[in-house]
């Protein structure tokens, strides 16, 4: 008996050796496949971010004309600055200060150098500080998209003139400006501080960021308490029977419903039946809440389940009521898990596009919303709009906007990871 067992486990026997080799080989294969899969995933990610950065980085700067100019009191009344003729002022600044006022033939072309919205930039400066009227100040005004492209080297000078958006003469004038030191390319804060515009050189994400923030706020305020309440009820108080099983299955299914369906639901219920306005973050947030709710319920239930029974027993054992156990012990211990799930749900909601398109949050709106009830876009729908715009300047802005959105998403996920690590299980 002992002899035969010893023989069977003889490490030198050929069968055992072959078996060991096979085992090592399959382990090696598994490892290689795993490393391969991760490498592919990383390569994809690298490609995505790389291409976004290579097209998007140009949008993080914006070509400006930098000139010393006098705010002419003939054009702007210091007592009523907002009604001044800033269009003429902008034109004068370019022609007088830059070209020396000589070349009147070029007046039309000169109006083109500055962005169409430069007059409003100018107006904002003067309205903010009416004392400037009559003074000579240094001004920094955005140039039009095609000159911006030219300055960033994205406009090929070698294409025949008739196929180019700028004539030879226009390029010559702009080159003179560059030589004269009148052109600068500072960081494009307007990308974050301006609202949308038809003109890419002044278009920004402020409206979209605030719209997204309002929508997420509404989404959070609705889905967080309701989701936690539902999860507590299902996990702690609901009787375990057919109906609660059915509810559980339905919630799990709800989490898998495509977001466009929730968009249609939001459109039909909130806008159709309740007659709420279209395109507003409040309705967007409610629609997103429909999607986030199942995610939060599932995360909360999992977190509640993970609280060890010994803690409940301890509390019940000293005479805590069920409600005291839930709110005093179970919820605090489950909170990191709940928050992690909620933040991940919110991050999903932030990137969600389809439902917002359906409720009209892809409208063209040139001012940031000041309440959740003003029309607005959201970050993903703004990307959608810009990607659809023909102007060249929007190509890099679309990539830049995607990078901004990704930054917010990464920040939210990092917060979730931070919370999870900070409140590591203490039992």
């Amino acid at each position, binding site marked *: 008996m002992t002899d035969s067992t010893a023989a069977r486990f003889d490490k030198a026997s050929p069968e055992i050796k072959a078996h060991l080799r096979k085992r090592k080989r399959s382990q090696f294969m598994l490892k290689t496949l795993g490393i391969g899969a991760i490498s592919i995933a990383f390569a994809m990610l690298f490609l995505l971010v790389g291409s976004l950065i290579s097209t998007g980085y140009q949008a993080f700067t914006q070509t400006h004309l930098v000139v010393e100019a006098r705010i002419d009191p003939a054009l702007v009344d210091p007592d009523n600055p907002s009604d001044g003729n800033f269009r003429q002022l902008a034109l004068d600044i370019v022609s007088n200060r830059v070209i020396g006022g000589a070349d009147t033939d070029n007046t039309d072309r000169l109006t083109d150098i500055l962005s169409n919205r430069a007059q409003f930039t100018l107006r904002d400066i003067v309205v903010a500080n009416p004392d400037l009227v009559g003074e000579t100040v240094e001004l920094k005004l955005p140039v039009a998209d095609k000159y911006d492209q030219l300055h960033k080297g994205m406009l090929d000078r070698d294409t025949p003139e008739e196929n180019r958006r700028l004539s030879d003469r226009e390029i010559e004038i702009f080159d003179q400006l560059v030589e004269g030191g009148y052109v600068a390319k500072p960081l494009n804060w307007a990308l974050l501080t301006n609202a949308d515009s038809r003109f890419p050189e002044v278009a920004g994400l402020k409206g979209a960021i605030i719209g997204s923030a309002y929508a997420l706020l509404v989404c959070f305020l609705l889905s967080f308490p309701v989701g936690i309440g539902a999860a507590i009820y299902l996990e702690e108080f609901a009787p375990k029977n057919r109906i609660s099983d059915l509810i559980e299955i339905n919630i799990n299914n709800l989490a898998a419903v495509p977001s466009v369906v929730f968009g249609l639901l939001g459109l039909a219920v909130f806008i159709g039946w309740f007659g709420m306005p279209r395109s507003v973050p409040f309705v967007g947030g409610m629609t997103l809440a429909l999607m986030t709710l199942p995610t939060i319920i599932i995360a909360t239930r999992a977190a509640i389940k993970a609280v060890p029974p010994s803690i409940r*027993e301890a509390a019940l054992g000293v005479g*805590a009521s069920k409600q005291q156990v839930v709110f005093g012990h179970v919820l605090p211990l489950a909170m990191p898990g709940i928050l992690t799930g909620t933040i991940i749900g919110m991050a999903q909601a932030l990137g969600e596009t389809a439902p917002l398109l359906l409720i009209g949050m892809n409208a063209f709106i040139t001012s940031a919303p000041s309440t959740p009830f003003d029309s607005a876009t959201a970050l993903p729908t703004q990307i959608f709009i810009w990607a659809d715009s023909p102007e060249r300047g929007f190509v890099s802005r679309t990539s830049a906007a995607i990078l901004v959105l990704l930054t917010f998403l990464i920040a939210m996920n990092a917060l979730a990871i931070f919370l999870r690590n900070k409140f590591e299980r203490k039992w």
Partner: protein
Amino acid sequence: MTQNATKFSARKVQVFYGDTQAIKDVDVDIEDKTVTAFIGPSGCGKSTFLRCLNRMNDTIDNCRVEGDILLDGEDIYDKRIDPVQLRAKVGMVFQKPNPFPKSIYENVAYGPKIHGMTRSKAELDEVVEKALRRAALWTEVKDRLDTPGTGLSGGQQQRLCIARAVATSPEVLLMDEPCSALDPIATAQVEELIDELRTRYSVVIVTHSMQQAARVSQNTAFFHLGELVEFGETDSIFTNPQDHRTESYITGRIG
């Protein structure tokens, strides 16, 4: 039997988990200021019966208790009895030390707080100190009351759980294998403590160690397959068992 007053008196107690019966026809009287040990092979229903005494079985969905259990002559399964109030009177200590992931102070203060037993912070401080002293833990932790209870050693944690149970001024302390997760030194400390607790409380302890039952208890109940086979003074159970199953168990023939 000793001469103390009867605390718990159980008659014809049956416990079912769904359709399976875990306790059959148990009659037992538990005395005040006495340590009563429940012994018996694993799965015989010791914990189940113990949990009937503070209605912890109420928290298990499919558990049903029949028969009468009187505490000081009052039926604890009566509709007018609030199980939450009952558990303040009948404290419980569990197998695995289970302090709350809060400070030592908070652990002990929790019971008095939820039952509204104190009116001021000073009063609460006093209750906490008294409970920790009774659990023989005060000198070890008095300088770090605000550190987490989960940071104590296993034996200290179990004494903290005893302090937590004692803090609500219970009349009975139920202990379900309180030493099975402890090392021998911590076990000895807790056993010594149990002997001291006997001067104030009625203590019921479930144990799988017959030596422990012999060391700490005055009365012993032997359970087998859901039945109470024999109940009497510990000395006579161990030296002169009446039932052959008891004898087999204490001589090591039933595992």
